[in-house]
């Protein structure tokens, strides 16, 4: 039996990010992720949601969680309708940033999660990150 849950939040301010982060943390704890996994994943979500308010004004953050007898998984989709990323390959290089802050954003996020997918057009950017764990039996 698979249990899955969905949750969507609008992101337009730091307050929204704070709310998303506390929800994310709660989901991870409930699902049984280790402390280190929780820190990794929440850091990744924090980077991506901050990118929304930095580059796009507003967007959404969706959490999907799946659990079955052997495995649990959390997937987060962070989407905005900002100007998009002109050169994704370049944006994924370690140390690259167009905004003059730390250039660790996207490549850093990729290092923290099990699966990382990014698509970007002139109408917006969508990043999907996944982390999973195995249940002890």
């Amino acid at each position, binding site marked *: 039996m698979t249990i899955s849950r969905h949750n969507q939040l609008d992101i337009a301010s*730091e*307050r929204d990010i*704070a709310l998303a*982060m*506390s929800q994310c*943390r709660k989901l991870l704890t409930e699902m049984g992720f280790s*402390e*280190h996994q*929780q*820190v*990794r994943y*929440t*850091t990744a979500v*924090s*980077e991506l949601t*901050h990118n929304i308010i930095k580059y796009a004004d507003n967007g959404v953050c969706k959490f999907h969680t799946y659990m079955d007898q052997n495995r649990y998984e959390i997937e987060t989709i962070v989407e905005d309708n900002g100007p998009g990323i002109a050169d994704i390959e370049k944006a994924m290089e*370690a*140390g690259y940033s167009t905004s003059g*802050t*730390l250039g*660790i*954003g996207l*490549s*850093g*996020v990729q*290092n*923290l999660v099990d699966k990382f997918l990014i698509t970007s057009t002139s109408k917006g950017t969508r990043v999907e990150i996944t982390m999973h764990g195995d249940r002890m039996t």
Partner: protein
Amino acid sequence: MKIPILKRGNILLTSLQEDLTDRDIVDLQEDLLDIIGETGSTGLVIDVTSLDRIDSYLSRILSQTAAMVGVLGCNVVISGIQPAVAMTLLEIGGALKNVKTALNLEHGIDMLLAGTNIES
């Protein structure tokens, strides 16, 4: 939300809590510069024990604050980074650069009291 700054001798102490906004941090930076200017404090410990994540934004802000305060001749130590947070910081390649760190508040204060030993 105003972040309190405590003074003990020549050392200032402040502690960061979860979910600070950029505004809070800018206010803290200004408050620190004012207080250091007024009191001539020579050391500052920023304790982050209660932070359960430090992303690239916060890491940058912390480095920037340390540099800013350092210009006034005040030594800065960041204390209490949780083990999982430290590992994550390294993984994203955002390790605090040019900032001295200590295991906990007590070690942080000791480092500052040892004074001349903490060259950067």
